């Protein structure tokens, strides 16, 4: 909305609900300081019933931060009221039952302390203190905060945010400080760690990470010596919008405004280009190309949200087969199709797809955040489904990740054990899914991984993992036989089958038991019944090392005249459709209906594939 129009409207509005509804459509970041001041005064006069009451306590001048916070929250659909404690009276406000704080009954208290007031020796005379005095000051500051925190918890029902202490832009001893074991840089790091741990250990308390916020804005822009000397107002105007934005994130988490599901468009949102035009190999995502790098980084950001517990969805106008092919053929993408809990790839209107996604996940439309690069699609969804938070991607893919991270809608105060377990599962992928799509030197990358494979007979405790590999592996699975635990036991004990598992590790750590091969020796010549590998081990030619080992053992040793194998296509195992061809097997038969292929490799034709970037060890 045009700001002049908004101001005109605000001069007339006398209904607080209407004022809030107007503000909820405003982009907070577009507002200037004077406009915030104006809008805040008008809004305050209308006094909408607050959804959150915030008290600001401490020993520095916080105004006009509360104006910014109130307007930021209103732009996010939340009405807030504020109480600013008297300068330096944070203890008295809490201890005195007749204080303004108690009358106000806050939901949230923010404590910001300036060391200029609390510990002037640290702020101004750091160089004249010895190590012991510095440590004593640190303990005194932490003690002060801890005592206040205990009192504040005791006296109120509020959630309490405690700001940490921004590292100063300049150090008293200059760069020599960095070689002082009790130096100023170390002092702030230790102090802030103490404050972090104090908050973490105190129920109802959370750190407000002012140090990181100030660093983000830039210490020299965030603080104003002039305002400090004039009015003990340390925070420059530059800091305030970011400060309000950060505080709003806490409000989102506290007030249950957190959204559950992120729905993404695909073409030019999740990858560069249009798959219907450029094809699955033509869309840009992955290393070796600046645009591809930007989309790669963006996808990593989305994976991080998933690990936080955000459900992912797709709403894309595309042919489903094209989309599946991108995910199947671009294993370097951090996001897999399986990461998305609701997928709407069709030619329906986006708002129809969003409704279908909400319905399939059994969540409200107002739990959705929708990202799309197309202004027309964004506009239509805003029009049809105003409850959805619609985010139009910036023009430059370089800014996509920042745009995603700027969204406050996925904040939560802590992440549960369940979320974290999910996160661990994806951590390995994150570390390794890097240079697969590189157009540069793939061999250098593979060598740099330092992959080691232990190809061995399974032992009893491997049974569960083997069962899991059979049942859960979709992509690298040549026949997709979903064997039962009893089948697995049979493979491991009888004479008919040879089963081997592959443990993989690389310089990033253990991938664990990620592959297996099952060979049936009942026929005239042995046949590979199943060859399965977890997707996290794909793309580094481990399959060649394993097949080489099998060729050596069964064919090159003279043990058998030939080896057979089979590929049975499924919706998801496209990545191994040509696997056996690439390993030198000859197609011996093809089922035109199912697309299944039988292969045979005679001993005299068996050759090992070069695969010297993998070190394979056998157990016998």
């Amino acid at each position, binding site marked *: 909305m045009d700001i002049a129009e908004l101001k005109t409207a605000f001069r007339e509005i006398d209904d607080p609900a209407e004022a809030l509804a107007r503000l909820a459509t405003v982009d907070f970041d577009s507002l200037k300081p*004077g406009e915030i001041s104006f809008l805040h005064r008008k809004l305050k006069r209308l006094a909408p019933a607050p959804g959150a009451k915030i008290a600001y306590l401490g020993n520095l001048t916080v105004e006009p931060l509360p104006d910014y916070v109130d307007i930021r929250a209103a732009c996010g659909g939340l009405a807030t009221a504020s109480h600013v404690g008297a300068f330096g009276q944070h203890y008295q406000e809490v201890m005195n039952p007749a204080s303004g704080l108690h009358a106000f009954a806050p939901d949230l208290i923010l404590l910001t302390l300036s060391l200029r007031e609390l510990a002037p020796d640290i702020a101004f005379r750091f160089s004249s203190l010895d190590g012991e005095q510095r440590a004593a000051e640190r303990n005194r500051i932490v003690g002060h905060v801890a005592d206040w925190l205990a009192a504040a918890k005791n006296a109120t029902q509020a959630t309490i945010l405690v700001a940490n202490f921004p590292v100063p832009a300049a150090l008293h001893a200059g760069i020599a400080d960095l070689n002082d074991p009790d130096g100023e840089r170390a002092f702030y790091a230790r102090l802030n760690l103490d404050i972090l741990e104090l908050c973490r250990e105190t129920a109802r308390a959370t750190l407000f990470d002012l140090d990181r916020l100030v660093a983000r804005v830039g210490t020299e822009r965030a603080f104003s010596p002039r305002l400090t000397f004039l009015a003990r107002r340390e925070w420059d105007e530059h800091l305030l919008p970011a400060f309000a934005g950060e505080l709003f994130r806490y409000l989102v988490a506290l007030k249950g405004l957190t959204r559950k599901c992120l729905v993404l468009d695909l073409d030019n949102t999740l990858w560069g280009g249009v798959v219907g035009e450029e094809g699955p190999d033509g869309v840009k995502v992955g290393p070796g190309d600046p645009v591809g790098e930007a989309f790669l980084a963006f996808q990593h950001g989305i994976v991080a949200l998933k690990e936080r517990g955000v459900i992912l969805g797709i709403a894309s106008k595309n042919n489903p087969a094209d989309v599946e092919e991108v995910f199947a053929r671009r294993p370097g993408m951090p996001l897999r199709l399986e990461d998305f809990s609701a997928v709407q790839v069709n030619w329906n209107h986006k708002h129809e797809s969003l409704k279908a996604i909400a319905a399939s996940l059994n969540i409200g439309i107002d739990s959705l955040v929708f990202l799309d690069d197309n202004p027309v699609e964004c506009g239509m969804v805003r029009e049809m489904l105003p409850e959805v938070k619609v985010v139009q991607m910036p023009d430059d893919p370089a800014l996509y990740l920042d745009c995603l991270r700027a969204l406050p809608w996925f904040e939560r105060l802590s992440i549960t054990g369940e979320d974290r377990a999910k996160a661990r599962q994806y951590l390995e992928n994150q570390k390794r899914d890097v240079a697969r799509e590189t157009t540069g030197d793939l061999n250098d990358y593979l060598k740099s991984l330092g992959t080691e494979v232990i190809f061995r007979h399974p032992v009893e405790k491997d049974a569960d993992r083997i069962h899991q590999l059979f049942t859960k592996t979709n992509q690298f699975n040549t026949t997709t036989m979903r064997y039962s635990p009893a089948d697995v036991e049979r493979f491991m004990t009888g004479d008919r089958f040879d089963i081997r598992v592959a443990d993989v590790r690389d310089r990033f750590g253990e991938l664990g038991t990620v592959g297996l091969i099952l060979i049936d020796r009942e026929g005239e010549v042995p046949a590979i019944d199943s060859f399965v590998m977890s997707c996290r081990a794909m793309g580094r030619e481990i399959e060649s090392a394993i097949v080489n080992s099998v060729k050596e053992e069964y064919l090159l040793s003279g043990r058998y005249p030939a080896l057979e194998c089979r590929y049975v296509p499924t919706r998801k195992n496209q990545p191994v459709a040509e696997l056996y061809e690439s390993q030198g097997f000859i197609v011996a038969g093809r089922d035109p209906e199912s697309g299944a292929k039988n292969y045979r490799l005679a001993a005299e034709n068996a050759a090992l594939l070069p695969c010297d970037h993998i070190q394979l060890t056998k157990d016998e």
Partner: protein
Amino acid sequence: MHDSQNVADELDEIIADIFDIRVGKLRDEMTHEDIEQWDSINHLKLITAIEDEYDIEFSMADVQAIDSIGKLREIVARLRG
């Protein structure tokens, strides 16, 4: 971008926003005695809002010297060269 008439209008708009006063009522000779909202907090809000708008910076002496609308207009004109 700002020609001088626009600058004057924009400046008055900011003053009006922060002091909650109609643009047309602003006079050079007005001081904090005449404008109820002109307290120390709003004084700094005004300063930082103007700095943000014109990308200028008042010195501490300027901030202290601004005691009337006229003085403010004069200092803004000087800083904008």
